[in-house]
């Protein structure tokens, strides 16, 4: 029922506007509100904070179904939940949860997660943004880049990773500080001219002598790095769901086209060159789904899932890459035209092997898990 309902919603509400929003590079507040009405923000958050209280697999299926139609809206939902709501829900104290979660779940505002900096991408530990405690306030200085859901009219708060001191072992002490949009000294600038996720909001953030109350610390001081790693583990499942959903969407379009398109007097799906491509697409999608759902079931059962999360993210995003390539190929010249939709999937796929840990970083994580470094 969950899948059917979201599929109906995505086909009726998102599909008709996806092409235009992509072309205009427009983040739609109206559509985001509709997605919020569907309950797409706060899917795993308990009802008492305004969420739906569903398990992680349900959340992943929701993202998959949105991404089957449009990557940009999938990004708004995936980042809104995993990166926006996630840290507040998992690490916030009761007061913070009560203050922020209901509004986030209703979709009145979106939260963002500010980790990446110009000089700190894969190497997140290299970040330079600082927060020092002064007269009962955190004073944040620095900048963040590529932050999803951070710079639209709906953006309400950002969880900012900052250096809050030095640990006894000499390493940086990292903490997460909640900085509401609109706080003096916090400027969010929309980033434009993206190749993909054009209808999703990406911002560059600047903090200059930006002061927030001491109580805006998220969780414990010094746990920022751990919180970040856990948030990315969770987020990877959602990025994987975007790969899976996008692959499914492109595959369905290509299959339908190949069955209808005739060349040399027959449907092009009957040429082995195309039929085998479609068979491979279907097989890889099924394998990707099985892997991702397994990772979710591990998480839902409270078992370690970090290795499977990295594998899912790596595999699903790369499967989508192969699937969109074949989809465009099968559709020939028409596959290259916007009107035939797979062109957008072809572009949208590329972020998935980069955001929330590149494919290389996933392979690094997996190789650590399987013991390559324990020598």
């Amino acid at each position, binding site marked *: *029922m969950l899948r*059917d*309902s979201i599929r109906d919603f995505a086909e009726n509400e998102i599909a008709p506007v996806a092409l235009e929003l992509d072309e205009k590079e427009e983040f739609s507040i109206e559509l985001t509100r509709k997605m919020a009405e569907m*309950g797409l923000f706060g899917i795993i958050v308990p*009802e008492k904070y305004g969420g*739906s209280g*569903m398990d992680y697999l349900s959340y992943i299926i929701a993202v998959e179904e949105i991404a089957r139609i449009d990557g940009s809206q999938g990004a708004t939902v995936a980042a809104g939940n995993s990166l926006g709501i996630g840290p507040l829900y998992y690490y916030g104290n009761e007061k913070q949860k009560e203050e922020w979660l209901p509004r986030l779940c209703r979709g009145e505002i979106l939260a963002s997660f500010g980790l990446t900096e110009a000089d700190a991408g894969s190497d997140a530990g290299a970040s330079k943004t600082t927060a020092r405690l002064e007269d009962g306030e955190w004073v944040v200085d620095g900048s963040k880049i590529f932050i999803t859901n951070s710079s639209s009219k709906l953006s309400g708060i950002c969880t900012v990773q900052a250096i809050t001191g030095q640990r006894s072992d000499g390493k940086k002490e990292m903490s997460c500080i909640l900085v509401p949009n609109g706080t003096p000294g916090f400027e969010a600038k929309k980033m434009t001219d993206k190749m993909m996720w054009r209808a999703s909001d990406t911002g560059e953030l600047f903090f200059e002598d930006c002061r927030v109350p001491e109580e805006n610390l998220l969780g414990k001081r010094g746990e920022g790095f751990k919180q970040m790693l856990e948030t990315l583990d969770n987020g990877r499942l959602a990025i994987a769901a975007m790969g899976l959903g996008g692959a499914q969407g492109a595959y369905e379009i290509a299959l339908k086209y190949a069955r209808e398109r005739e060349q040399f007097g027959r449907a092009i799906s009957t040429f082995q060159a195309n039929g085998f491509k479609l068979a491979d697409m279907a097989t890889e999608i099924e394998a990707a789904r099985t892997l991702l759902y397994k990772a979710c079931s591990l998480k839902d059962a409270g078992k370690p899932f970090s290795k499977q999360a990295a594998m899912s993210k790596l595999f699903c995003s790369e499967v989508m890459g192969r699937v969109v390539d074949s989809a465009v190929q099968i559709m020939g010249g028409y596959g290259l035209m916007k009107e035939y939709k797979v062109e957008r999937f072809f572009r949208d796929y590329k972020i998935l092997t980069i955001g929330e840990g590149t494919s290389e970083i996933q392979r690094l994580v997996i190789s650590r898990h399987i013991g390559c470094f324990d020598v």
Partner: protein
Amino acid sequence: MKIIVLLKRVPDTEAKILINQDGNGIREDGVKFIINTYDEYGIEEGLRLKEKVGGDSKVTAVCAGPEESTEVIRTALAMGVDDAVHICDPALAKPSPFTIAEVLAKAISEEGFDIIFCGKQGIDDDMAQTQSILAEKLDIPQVNNATVFELADDLSKAVLNRRIEGGDEKVEASLPVIISCEKGLNDPRYASLPGIMKAKKKEIRVKNLADLGFNEAPSSGRSRVLKWLPMPKGGECKMVEAEETVDAVKELARLLREEAKVV
């Protein structure tokens, strides 16, 4: 106000329909089932009415159908319907509209009602009879093919538009009334995620024929389905070919006049 919405489990509009081996139904393997599309308008109108009237208004879904109907009932509950009655009995396999109307009438009377919404027809059998027979059994007025529905402020009567050939007819009906819904009446809401969670806790009262006081399935009336036949295959297709389009059109006109004798 006590609002009843009827719902039926039917094959998805996009499902490929094949007749079963016995020729008395369709093959159900691999077919997806949904809430009858027209019933969704009824559900939506029922929910809107409840939201408008407020107070202790309640929307109850009534569904007669096989065990598997639970899924479409849950979907209605997820849309916001308060509770449901599921009439389920092996003796009701492939029932006629007459039989169904009889059991529905009994179940609905037990629930009590001020207004009943249903679809203008089932998109599976396309009989469009149940609501009329039901109105007769309950001895209440019926308005078919509603495209606009409003309730008078004193809740005493309904004012409706019903779609007829070429336009709408405005009618008034006293309550209680049964209204069959036409496309255009409203935009049915989606089952939201919080709605899906809430639906899990809502009650579905399952009743068999004995629970409703029947010893056996009520009579199927005077008509009987003899056999199901597949869609007749389309006739032979003749391609008209010519060098010039003008000549092709001339040839087509000739064929239509002389061979097909339709112009």
